[in-house]
């Protein structure tokens, strides 16, 4: 922990993440906003001013407020997605690593299939057919994240399975279930934590990409990718519409990535460059 506190870029990342979390939690208090009704056509497409720091959009809505509330959408979906894929991926990974045999083969095969779809392609396939809603996007991105956790947990279980303390626990009569969750999982935790932090940043990007493709949140939800999409059509006369949410995405992802790198350096000294 002390090493983490001494890592300057890691602290910068942590700072950014904390600011984003606090801001999004306080958004309804500091900047109350209703996505459906909060509009003022008299103030359409006004450039940034002291009154509207990031200008207004085509419906006269304050861009800063929407970006601010967009953080609520992105961060909450990102947390749900990462929780979903971490839980599923970890369970399946531990299961595959512990049991081995045909179950391991089938699960690994399944994960290889998921990995055959580069980038956001799998999510696009799923959402394009299930229907473009934020909750379908959430399911799709969660499935997309399973392989990362599966592989990390499977390999750390394989590494730990034959160590003496695990054999001792088994010899003392602990059930397989108990061995897995009391002895193996806690010891395989550090790669998992690194994976979660990096994954949070990546998920924010994926949500935005799907939103930009029209496959995520739908209007009038203030979602960053969707805001860039609708701002893009008016880029020539109102560039602030896309610049502001894009910068918010960049900053939040940067925060998660810096933090993730720092945690990796601390938890896994072998990888330190």
């Amino acid at each position, binding site marked *: 922990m002390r090493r983490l506190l001494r890592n300057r870029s890691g602290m910068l990342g942590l700072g950014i993440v904390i600011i984003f979390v606090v801001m999004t939690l306080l958004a309804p208090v500091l900047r109350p906003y209703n996505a459906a009704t909060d509009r003022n056509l008299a103030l359409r497409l006004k450039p940034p001013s002291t009154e509207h720091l990031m200008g207004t959009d085509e419906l006269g809505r304050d861009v800063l407020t929407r970006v601010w509330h967009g953080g609520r959408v992105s961060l909450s979906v990102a947390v749900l997605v990462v929780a979903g894929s971490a839980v599923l991926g970890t369970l399946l990974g531990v299961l595959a690593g512990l049991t081995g045999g045909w179950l391991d083969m089938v699960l690994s095969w399944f994960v290889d*299939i998921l990995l*055959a779809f*580069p980038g956001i392609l799998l999510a696009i396939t799923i959402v394009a057919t299930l229907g473009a809603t934020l909750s379908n996007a959430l399911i799709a991105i969660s499935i997309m994240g399973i392989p990362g956790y599966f592989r990390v947990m499977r390999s750390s279980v394989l590494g730990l399975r034959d160590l003496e303390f695990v054999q001792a626990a088994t010899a003392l009569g602990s059930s397989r279930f108990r061995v897995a969750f009391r002895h193996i999982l806690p010891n395989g935790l550090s790669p998992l934590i690194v994976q979660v932090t990096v994954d949070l940043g990546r998920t924010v990007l994926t949500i935005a990409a799907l939103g930009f493709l029209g496959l995520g949140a739908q209007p009038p939800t203030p979602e960053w990718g969707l805001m860039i999409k609708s701002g893009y059509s008016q*880029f020539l006369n109102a560039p602030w519409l896309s610049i502001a949410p894009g910068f918010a*995405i960049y900053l939040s992802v*940067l925060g998660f990535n810096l933090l993730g*790198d720092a945690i990796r350096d601390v938890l896994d000294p072998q990888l330190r460059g």
Partner: protein
Amino acid sequence: MNTYILRRVLGTIPVLLGVTFLVFAVNRIIPSNPAVAILGDKGTVEAQEQLAEELGLNKPVFLDLQGYRATGELKALFDSQYVAYMRDLLTGDLGRSFMTRAPVVDSLRVRFPATMELAFFAIIIGAGLGVLLGVVAALNRSTWVDTTMLFIAVSGVSFPVFWTAIILIYVFSVNLGWFPPAGRLAVTSTIEPITGMHVLDALLRGQFNLALSALHHLVLPAFALGTNAMALIMRMTRSSMLEVLQRDYMRTAKSKGLMPRVVVLKHALRNALLPIVTVAGLSFGALLSGAILIEAIFNWPGIGSWVYNAITQRDYPIIQGGILFVAGVFVVLNLLVDLSYVLIDPRIRY
């Protein structure tokens, strides 16, 4: 070694099978009936039923158990939608677009070279800059140069590519006017296709002005697409170089009095190359999915913008055909990256 290659090649078959199965399964859970989707609101119930019969939608999805029980013939068992789909797939038939009725395979053939050209230049830019900056960072370890490079690398994976693309257009085409904002060539000119890749075709035909024009159009989209790969390759180059620089043979090379350039390029970089190539190869596959966003923004007539338009029009055969194709290319690319290890590092023998 031959057994390794054979095993690795055979190993992709179950994965590819699984990919087709997954895409097919997702295809079957479409809420709407494809026959209704094709005919639109105007189609009569009779026309819908006829089309459903033509498309084989009335057959069982996976196995015709009833038909098998009734006739007792194995042939009847496999008279199903999935078998028909696989048979079409193996004969190169991916169905027809709902909107234009054009065969999906034909459009793929026209659009794939455009995407390959874009991805190729993106990886050239990404790998070129990535290796260069990574080496610079490693040689200046723990100085402000290194810190700056690391910051560039983290930023490169933190920008949403579609946003980078929009900003690049705004700065370099709208404001500075240096590069065209869209398309592959100036509107007035055309190239008779040979390979479908404009730069190569123009060079093959000796039309250097056209080749330059095509390159000019490539700069912004290739750079936007390549930033992510650049960041990943840069980090990998840096850490791989740092590891190699500590080795004893580096000290030997330096104390032999070799020129620093030779030491860095021949002794260090050559040995640091393996992980770099892995990352570059994997990034190349990821570029194919990033192309969906980039091509849509730059109006680049490749697979990406085609799938993007299909998404907005709910043209399922194109979405599925395009995605199936890209996934197939990705699997093959990964295979090639694996096999290329042997060529790069003669120490590896399987």
